[in-house]
C-alpha cells in the first residue's frame, strides 16, 4: 500500500486507515447510488469491494453515474464500475459479479463482509437482501432516492438480536404494489410496465456519501444496537433521524427464532435429508415454487395435473393460458411451504429450486443453503 496516497487521512484523529484497509464491503446494485457508494469507499481506501449487478448501462444512466462513459453503453454495470474503481485505486481488491446477487451471493460470503450496501431499485431485491443479512447477522445499509429526497437506513445486524429489519416498517401498500407485478401469486405479468422514478445526481451523491459515512461508522463502532433511518430533503436541507422500531408482526424477523444456525446441504430431496424432523414438520423455501398446473377445462381431474416443481419466478402469466383450448383456464399451484411427508412422497429425487430452506424447531431456526 502506498501510504502517501492516504497521507491526508492520517491527519484525521478519528480515522484509522489500517481499519479501513482491513474492511470489506459488498455493493448490491451499481446504478446511480451504487456508483457513488463504490466511488466513496474506493477513495477512502477500503480493502475489498464486491460489486453486484445484472443490468447493462443505458445512455440515460450517464447523468447520474460518475463511473460510466458514453462508450460503456451496453456493457454490464458491475464490470464497468469495477474497472473504473481499479483505476481510482489499484490497491483495492475488487470483485465483480455480473448477475443477480440472489444467485451469486452465498450466505457464507455475505457473512464475510463488514457491511452490505443495498443500492437496488425495487422492493423485492431489498426484501431478499434483508433476509440474507438478517440470517447471517451481516450489517446492512439500505439506500433509496427520488428527485428530492435521500434516504438511508442502517441495520446493525452484527451487533446482535432484536434489531428491527427492513420489513418491520414496510407499509402494506408496498406489498400490494409488488403483487401488481404478478398474477396467481408469483407469476410475472407479461404486460406489466414498471414505473420509472426520475432522480438526479444531487440525491444519489448525497445518499452515497451518507451511506459510505455510516459504513465507516459500523467498522469503527460496533456498539450500535438499534436500526436507524436518515431522511434528507435535498431542496431545504431538512433532515430527520429516527430509530426504526421492530415489529412483532414482521414477516421477516418475527418468524426467526432467537438462535439461527446455517448449514449447507444438497438440493436433492432424499429421505435422509430431514433426519432431525418429523414427517409432519414443515419447511419453508426461500423462493415460491410452481408445483403444478392443470387446465380445468381439458383436465377436470386433479390427478391430471402436470408436475413442474420449479422456481415460480422463471415463469410468467402466459402459463395460465391453455395451449390446447386457448382459454385462460389453467390453474397453477404455487407454494413456499411443504411438509416433509409431502416432499418425500411427491418430489423424492427432485431438486428443491430455492436458494435455501428454513425450518423452525423449538427455539432454533435452521437454514440449509442448497447446493
Amino acid at each position, binding site marked *: 500500500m502506498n501510504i502517501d496516497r492516504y497521507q491526508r487521512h492520517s491527519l484525521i484523529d478519528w480515522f484509522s486507515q489500517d481499519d479501513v484497509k482491513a474492511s470489506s464491503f459488498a455493493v448490491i*446494485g451499481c*446504478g*446511480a*447510488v*451504487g456508483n457513488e457508494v463504490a466511488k466513496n469507499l474506493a477513495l477512502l481506501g477500503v480493502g475489498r469491494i464486491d460489486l453486484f449487478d445484472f443490468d447493462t448501462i443505458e445512455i440515460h444512466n450517464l447523468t447520474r453515474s460518475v463511473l460510466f462513459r458514453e462508450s460503456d453503453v451496453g456493457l454490464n454495470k458491475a464490470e464497468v464500475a469495477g474497472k473504473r474503481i481499479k483505476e481510482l485505486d489499484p490497491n483495492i481488491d475488487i470483485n465483480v459479479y455480473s448477475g443477480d446477487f440472489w444467485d451469486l451471493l452465498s450466505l457464507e460470503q455475505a457473512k464475510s463482509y463488514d457491511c452490505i450496501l*443495498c*443500492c*437496488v*431499485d*425495487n*422492493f423485492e431485491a431489498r426484501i431478499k437482501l434483508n433476509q440474507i443479512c438478517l440470517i447471517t447477522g451481516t450489517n446492512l445499509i439500505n*439506500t*433509496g*432516492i*427520488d428527485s*428530492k*429526497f*435521500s*434516504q438511508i437506513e442502517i441495520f446493525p445486524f452484527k451487533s446482535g438480536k432484536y434489531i428491527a429489519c427492513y420489513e*418491520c*416498517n*414496510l*407499509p*402494506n*401498500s*408496498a406489498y400490494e*404494489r409488488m403483487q401488481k407485478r404478478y398474477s396467481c401469486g408469483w407469476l410475472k405479468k407479461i404486460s406489466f410496465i414498471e*414505473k420509472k*422514478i426520475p*432522480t438526479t445526481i444531487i440525491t444519489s451523491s448525497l445518499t452515497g456519501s451518507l451511506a459510505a459515512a455510516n459504513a465507516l461508522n459500523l467498522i469503527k463502532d460496533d456498539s450500535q444496537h438499534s436500526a436507524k*433511518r436518515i*431522511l434528507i*430533503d435535498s*431542496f*431545504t436541507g*431538512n433532515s*430527520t*433521524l*429516527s*430509530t*426504526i*422500531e*421492530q*415489529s412483532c*408482526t*414482521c414477516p421477516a424477523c418475527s418468524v426467526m427464532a432467537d438462535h439461527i444456525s446455517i448449514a449447507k446441504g444438497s438440493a436433492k430431496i432424499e429421505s435422509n435429508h430431514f433426519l432431525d424432523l418429523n414427517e409432519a414438520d414443515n419447511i419453508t423455501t426461500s423462493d415460491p415454487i410452481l408445483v403444478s398446473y392443470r387446465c380445468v377445462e381439458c383436465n377436470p381431474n386433479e390427478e391430471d395435473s402436470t408436475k413442474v416443481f420449479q422456481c415460480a419466478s422463471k415463469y410468467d402469466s402466459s402459463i395460465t393460458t391453455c395451449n390446447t383450448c386457448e382459454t385462460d383456464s389453467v390453474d397453477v399451484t404455487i407454494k413456499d411451504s411443504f411438509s416433509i411427508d409431502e416432499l418425500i412422497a411427491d418430489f423424492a429425487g427432485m431438486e428443491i429450486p430455492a436458494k435455501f430452506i428454513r425450518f423452525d424447531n423449538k427455539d432454533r431456526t435452521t437454514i440449509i443453503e442448497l447446493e
Partner: protein
Amino acid sequence: MSEVNVIIRTADQTRKAEVSLDISNTGADVIQASVDNWSLPTDTDYSLVSTSSGKTITPNSTLGKNEIKDGDILEVQPVLVAG
C-alpha cells in the same frame, strides 16, 4: 375511546394539520388518512415517524402502543425505492 391531539405533516413540510386521533388508530390508518385528505401521490408508499420520540411507528401498531401524546408531531415520510 381516548383521543390525542397531534400535528401531522409531510416530510417536505408543505402540508401540516392539527388533528384529533383515536389512540386505537394504527400507523397505516394515519398514513391512509393523510394520503386521502392531502391527495398525496398514490404511486408512492409512506412510513410514519414520531419526530417527538424520534421513532418510527410500524404500520400495524397503534398510536396508543407508541405512547403518542398531545402535541406530538407525526411525519409522513416517503419510502424511497429508486437506487
